[in-house]
């Protein structure tokens, strides 16, 4: 079956295919199809959980490998070793054989062991080093403490005799009084001490707790360590203090030890004797230097190992990711135990079937298997998924439409005209030659540097603009065009042709005369710039422009509903929806458009007549049909009669729109009933549900189940394209149609008014750029002399920056959103059906795009 060529106009023709794959080459086949990326596999085991599926074991194993690779990656990040970029590989995408995967798994396992043991020893050594450093600090600081404390034994003793001494301390110290007086040495005074290191932020709490628990019965000394200590586990810097606490009594010392340990302090042994202390310091220093060299070696080995891994890590990650995806897809297949084959069902574009078959043949030949892989096309009643083959130019435009809703299978794709209408309506609002040039240049730059930009990491806003670079390109081109039409370049006029106006009084004015028989040939006459009444003229022009463009856009969109109705062979949609809708719309708003153009056509001053106001004409047409605002001066002869006829036409269309379709559908339904037909969905729902999961489902199979119902009623296979059959319910259809009618009629009014945003935004954009010019450059031009030169340079940059950021980026965003709305609401409501199923092919390319390996 030769399918028509796939275009952007309709979604690609899809076929449900069934593959019979020999079990031995299942992996290779799926991997080859993943490279091809055109098959959307259906899940044939949806009732089994993830754990019960055939290839869960393999996936677990690959998960483990993936975890190991991630571990390497995190270790590399920690050691700040860069990973070789994925783009530096010549061809990382060759599909590896199963044994290569096994090899890779073993390799990563052994590497993980090695790295983690290296890491472990490195961390232990690092911890040891920190401990030694802390000890060294304690030893260094303790010397000072001891000296000071020795000097204070005198003071301690004095305080015990003093009546003004704190009460608590006094009481506590009282019993040892006699003893303490005897000797000044610590040991003789029975004073012990605890030395250690504690994080600085805990020191206050530490002191308070000690004071309270020991009732002030201690002598504490502390000092800050000037350099921060690095915690080897978290790699964080912590600033710490050295402390030494003197107290007497073994129990109290033990208590202090407990308290300090519970507060996270590390205690170190320090000798009281200064000689011994000096020895200790010396010993610690030698140990530290030994440790440093060992650490250095370990670090070097680790880095060398990681660097070796970094060279191929990206490729391994890609391979494992693909392999995992292959097994996940294989899990969707059902397995025929008797014939030892895997059975798969997948949607694929009909045009790609040839390619799929040849790919499968290739895989078969390479494996040297005599049993070929069989590809069957199945006829089905299921709705095929919607698939558009896009390229980098059309992708962003299609995304605009897809963001609103998935297009129904084979429906007219609004994305195709959007390529032009979206940037064009944007440009009508954004029209300025200068700003358009900036957009165009930006887009060209993004397209020129496409490759490096798409590989680099972009921030969110910029990556969005980059994604839509071709939209920006079209926007820029059209904005330049509309800028020429509006005769605006950075709010200044562009005098391309001689003006059609000549100032009176030999070029002084203030009034102007028309140059006889000459119309300004392209765009607005530049003489309107900076006149008293340019807003009067341009507002009238731009409003009418918006209405006419809106009318054209909506008529165009409404036309697609005719194309859709003809394609899906539903004539009732033509006669019940399209025709009355079109007549309704044209007899009111088509007439308005006609009047606008007609009024422009007539040379009113030459007739010596004042033209009638169109706004009042439209109001009178509805409020007092048959009468005119000014019956003596009609727009044309017979205006009143024409308007009555048009109004009657519009009114007549409403009941047709309302009732024709539902009643016709009821008539059809009743006729079929009377002949003994029944809808498929009504009595074969059970059979249908079974079919859904039956992997051998064919049209014949389906027919069998229909026949086996056995009540003699023949089945109509009407609507075979749609998988789900709804029972006919008149009330539902009627309500649906009422809503549609009300919506359509009201929307004709509100949507036409909605296009006036084209005028409003273009007015705002133009005024804003004029204001910006007047507030910056105009002032700069007014300053004379040397200061003026500087002012012009400075203000120019200021003006340019504001032009780019306010007028181009901000105004551009707002105009873009308005254009988006005009497409989603005003245009697409006229014909868009939606409710399609997106096509999600199993493709390695998409997989790697979604989860990039950076």
């Amino acid at each position, binding site marked *: 079956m030769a399918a028509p060529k796939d275009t*952007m106009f309709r979604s690609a023709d899809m076929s449900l295919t069934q593959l019979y794959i020999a079990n031995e080459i299942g992996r290779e086949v799926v991997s080859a199809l993943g490279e091809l990326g055109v098959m959307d596999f259906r899940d044939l085991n949806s009732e089994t959980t993830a754990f019960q599926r055939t290839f869960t074991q393999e996936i677990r194993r690959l998960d483990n490998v993936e975890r190991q690779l991630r571990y390497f990656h995190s270790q590399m990040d920690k050691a700040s070793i860069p990973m070789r970029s994925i783009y530096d590989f010549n061809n990382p995408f060759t599909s590896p054989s199963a044994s290569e995967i096994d090899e890779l798994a073993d390799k990563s396992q052994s590497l993980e062991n090695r790295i983690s043991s290296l890491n472990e020893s490195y961390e232990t050594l690092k911890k040891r080093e920190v401990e030694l450093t802390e000890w060294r600090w304690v030893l260094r600081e303790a010397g000072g403490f001891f000296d000071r404390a020795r000097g204070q034994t005198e003071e301690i003793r004095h305080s015990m005799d003093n009546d003004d001494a704190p009460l608590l301390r006094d009481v506590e110290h009282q019993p040892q009084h006699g003893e303490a007086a005897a000797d000044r040495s610590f040991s003789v005074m029975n004073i012990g001490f605890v030395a250690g290191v504690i994080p600085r932020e805990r020191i206050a709490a530490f002191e308070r707790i000690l004071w309270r628990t020991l009732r002030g019965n201690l002598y504490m000394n502390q000092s800050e360590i000037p350099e921060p200590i690095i915690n080897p586990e978290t790699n964080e810097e912590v600033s710490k203090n050295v402390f030494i606490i003197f107290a007497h009594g073994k129990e109290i010392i033990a208590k202090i030890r407990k308290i300090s340990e519970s507060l996270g302090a590390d205690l170190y042994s320090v000798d009281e004797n200064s000689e011994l202390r000096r020895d200790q310091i010396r010993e610690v220093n030698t140990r530290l230097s030994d440790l440093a060299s060992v650490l250095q070696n370990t670090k070097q080995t680790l880095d060398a190992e990681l660097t070796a891994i970094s060279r191929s890590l990206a490729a391994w990650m890609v391979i494992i990711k693909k392999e995992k995806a292959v097994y996940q897809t294989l899990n969707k297949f059902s397995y025929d135990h008797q014939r030892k084959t895997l059975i798969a069902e997948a949607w694929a574009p009909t045009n790609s079937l040839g390619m799929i078959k040849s790919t499968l043949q290739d895989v078969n030949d390479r494996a040297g298997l005599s049993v070929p892989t069989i590809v069957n096309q199945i006829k089905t009643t299921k709705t095929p998924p919607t698939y558009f*083959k896009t390229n980098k130019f059309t992708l962003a435009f299609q995304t605009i439409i897809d963001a609103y809703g998935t297009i129904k299978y084979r429906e007219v794709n609004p994305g195709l005209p959007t*390529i032009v209408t979206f940037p064009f309506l944007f440009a009508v609002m954004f029209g300025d030659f200068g700003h358009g040039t900036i957009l165009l240049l930006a887009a060209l730059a993004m397209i020129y540097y496409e490759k490096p930009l798409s590989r680099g990491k972009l921030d969110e806003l910029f990556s969005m603009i980059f994604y839509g670079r071709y939209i920006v390109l079209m926007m820029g081109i059209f904005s330049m065009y509309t800028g020429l039409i509006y005769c605006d370049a950075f709010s200044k006029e562009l005098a391309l042709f001689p*003006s059609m106006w000549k100032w009176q009084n030999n070029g002084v004015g203030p009034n102007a005369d028309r140059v006889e028989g000459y119309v*300004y040939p392209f765009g*607005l006459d530049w003489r309107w710039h900076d006149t008293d009444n340019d807003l009067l003229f341009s507002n009238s022009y731009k409003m*009418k422009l918006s209405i006419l*463009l809106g009318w054209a856009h909506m008529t165009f969109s409404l036309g697609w509903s005719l194309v859709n109705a003809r394609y899906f062979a539903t004539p009732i949609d033509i006669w019940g929806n399209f025709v009355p809708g079109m007549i309704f719309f044209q007899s009111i708003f088509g007439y308005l458009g006609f009047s606008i153009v007609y009024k422009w*056509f007539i*040379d009113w001053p030459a007739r010596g007549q004042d033209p009638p106001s169109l706004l009042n004409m439209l109001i009178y047409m509805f409020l007092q049909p048959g009468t005119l605002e000014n019956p003596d001066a009609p727009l044309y002869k017979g205006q009143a009669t024409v308007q009555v006829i048009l109004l009657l036409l519009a009114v007549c269309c409403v009941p047709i729109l309302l009732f024709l379709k539902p009643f016709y559908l009821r008539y059809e339904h009743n006729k079929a009933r009377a002949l003994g037909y029944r809808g498929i969905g009504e009595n074969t729902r059970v059979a249908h549900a079974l079919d859904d999961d039956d992997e051998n489902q064919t049209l014949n199979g389906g027919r069998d189940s229909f026949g086996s119902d056995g009540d003699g009623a023949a089945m109509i296979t009407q609507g075979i394209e749609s998988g789900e059959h709804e029972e006919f319910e008149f009330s539902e259809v009627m309500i649906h149609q009422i809503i549609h009618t009300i919506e359509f009629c009201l929307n004709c009014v509100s949507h036409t008014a909605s296009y006036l945003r084209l005028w409003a935004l273009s007015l705002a954009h133009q005024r804003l750029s004029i204001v910006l010019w007047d507030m910056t450059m105009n002032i700069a031009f007014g300053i004379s002399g040397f200061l003026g030169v500087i002012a012009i340079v400075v203000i120019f940059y200021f003006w340019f920056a504001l032009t780019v950021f306010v007028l181009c980026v901000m105004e551009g965003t707002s105009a873009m959103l308005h254009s988006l709305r005009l497409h989603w609401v005003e245009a697409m409501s006229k014909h868009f059906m939606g409710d399609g199923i997106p096509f999600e092919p199993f493709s390695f390319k998409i997989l790697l795009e979604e989860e990039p390996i950076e």
Partner: protein
Amino acid sequence: MANGWSLVIGLIVIVVFCGVSWCAAPKGENQTVWRSTLILSAVACFLMWAITFLAQWHPLIQPIRNDLRPEHTPSHRAY
């Protein structure tokens, strides 16, 4: 130079352009995109130009200049 016939001439030019783009669009899988983009762009641009032209064909108001202050000499902007 430019009068009412410009509209007709413009229309003919656009119709010819559309015909040519329909036939001359590069063959291949992007033919539809080429055709629709070229023709729609031409039609949209023509519409906009024609509307602007029509609006100025028989203007009902004339520009009144607002830069006539004593400091402006008559020679200023005397084109």
